[in-house]
C-alpha cells in the first residue's frame, strides 16, 4: 500500500470536510467582496476611505487564494504524478497577470511577460497554474511600492537527462524577508512558526514545485541596491521532456 493510499484510507472523510469548509469560506468571501464593491461604487467616499476599502478587497482576494492553496495542497498530495496533465505556461502567466492586477486595486502594475510565442508546456495541471499565480501574489506582498514592476522570464534547462522549464520572476523593488535571505527556505519548515509565517507564500511555492517533480529557489536581485529586489525561480517538468 502506498503512503498516499494509506493516508486516504485513514481519513476517508477528511478531504470531503475540508472541501465543504473551504467552500463556505469562499462563499463568505464572495459576500464581503460584493458589498465592498457596492461601497466603492456608491460614491461619496473620501480618498482615504476608498483606499481602505481597496485594501480590504486585496485582503479578501488573498484570503480566497489561501483557501484555494490549502485545497490545492491536499489534492496535489493525493495525486499520482503520472496523472498530472500538461498546461500552457503562457496561458498560466497571462491568467496570473490578470488575477494579480485585479487583486490589488490600490497598486499599479507593469508586468513584463516573455515575448517568445513558442509553445511552452509544463507538467502540473491546475497546481502549476496556481504556482505561477502564487509566485506573483507572494512577490507583490514583498513590495510596498505603489507601482510594481514584475518581470517573468523563461528558459529551458536539463537535469539528469530530464528537460525542465525554468520560470524566473523578478521584482526590483521587493524586500525579501530576512529569514529567506539568511537561511535556506527548508529551514522555515523546522523554525518557529512565528518566523516561518513571513515566508509562507514562498513555502507554498516550494512545496507545490517539489510535488510536481521540480524545485523552487529565492534570492535577492541586487545586493548593492536599496531595496535589493527579489527573484523567485521555479523549475517545472517540461511536457514530453522525459
Amino acid at each position, binding site marked *: 500500500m502506498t503512503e498516499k493510499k494509506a493516508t486516504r484510507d485513514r481519513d476517508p472523510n477528511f478531504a470531503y470536510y475540508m472541501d465543504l469548509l473551504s*467552500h463556505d469560506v*469562499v*462563499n*463568505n*468571501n*464572495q*459576500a464581503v*467582496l*460584493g*458589498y465592498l*464593491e*457596492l461601497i466603492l461604487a456608491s460614491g461619496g467616499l473620501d480618498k482615504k476611505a476608498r483606499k481602505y476599502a481597496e485594501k480590504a478587497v486585496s485582503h*479578501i*482576494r488573498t484570503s*480566497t487564494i489561501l483557501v484555494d492553496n490549502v485545497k490545492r495542497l491536499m489534492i496535489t498530495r493525493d495525486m499520482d504524478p503520472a496523472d498530472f496533465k500538461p498546461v500552457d505556461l503562457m496561458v498560466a502567466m497571462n491568467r496570473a497577470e490578470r488575477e494579480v492586477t*485585479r487583486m490589488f486595486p490600490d497598486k499599479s502594475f507593469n508586468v513584463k511577460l516573455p515575448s517568445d510565442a513558442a509553445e511552452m508546456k509544463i507538467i502540473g495541471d*491546475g497546481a502549476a497554474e496556481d504556482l505561477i499565480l502564487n509566485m506573483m501574489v507572494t512577490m507583490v506582498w514583498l513590495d510596498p511600492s505603489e507601482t510594481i514592476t514584475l518581470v517573468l522570464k523563461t528558459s529551458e534547462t536539463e537535469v539528469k537527462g530530464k528537460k525542465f522549464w525554468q520560470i524566473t520572476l523578478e521584482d526590483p523593488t521587493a524586500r525579501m524577508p530576512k529569514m529567506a535571505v539568511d537561511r535556506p527556505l527548508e529551514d522555515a519548515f523546522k523554525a518557529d512558526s512565528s518566523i516561518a509565517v513571513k515566508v509562507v507564500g514562498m513555502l507554498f511555492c516550494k512545496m507545490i514545485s517539489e510535488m510536481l517533480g521540480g524545485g523552487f529557489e529565492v534570492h535577492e536581485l541586487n545586493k548593492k541596491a536599496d531595496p535589493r529586489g527579489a527573484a523567485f525561480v521555479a523549475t517545472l517538468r517540461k511536457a514530453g521532456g522525459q
Partner: protein
Amino acid sequence: MTSVLIVDDELFIVELYRDILQLRGYRIVGTAFDGEEAVRKYNTNPEKPDVVIMDHRMPVMNGVQATKEILRMNPKQKVIFVSADVMVEKEAREAGAIEFLPKPFRMDDLIEKMQKVAAQ
C-alpha cells in the same frame, strides 16, 4: 428590464445578488434555495426569467441537474452558472449553461455577463 431568477442555497448570497442586480436595474422574478425549488418555481411561474443565475453545490438537487431540468422545459433559457467549484465548469457548460463565473467574482463581471447574455 431584464428579469432574473436567482438560485443559491445561501441566503446571504441571494441577498447580495438581489441588492446588486436591483441597484443596476434588473428585475428579480424569483429566488430559490435548491435546485428542486428552482425547477418547481420555473415550471409553475408563468413569467419565465430572461436569465437564471445558478449555483452548483446545493441540497436536494445540484445546479448542473437543475440546469438540465430547466433546459429540458425550455431549451432557449439562458443560464449563468456561478460556483466556487471551478472543476464543475465543464459539466455546467455541457448541461447547457452559457456562461460560467468562478466565485469569488467581481460584481462588474456578473453585470458584464448579464448584459452579454441578455443581448444574445
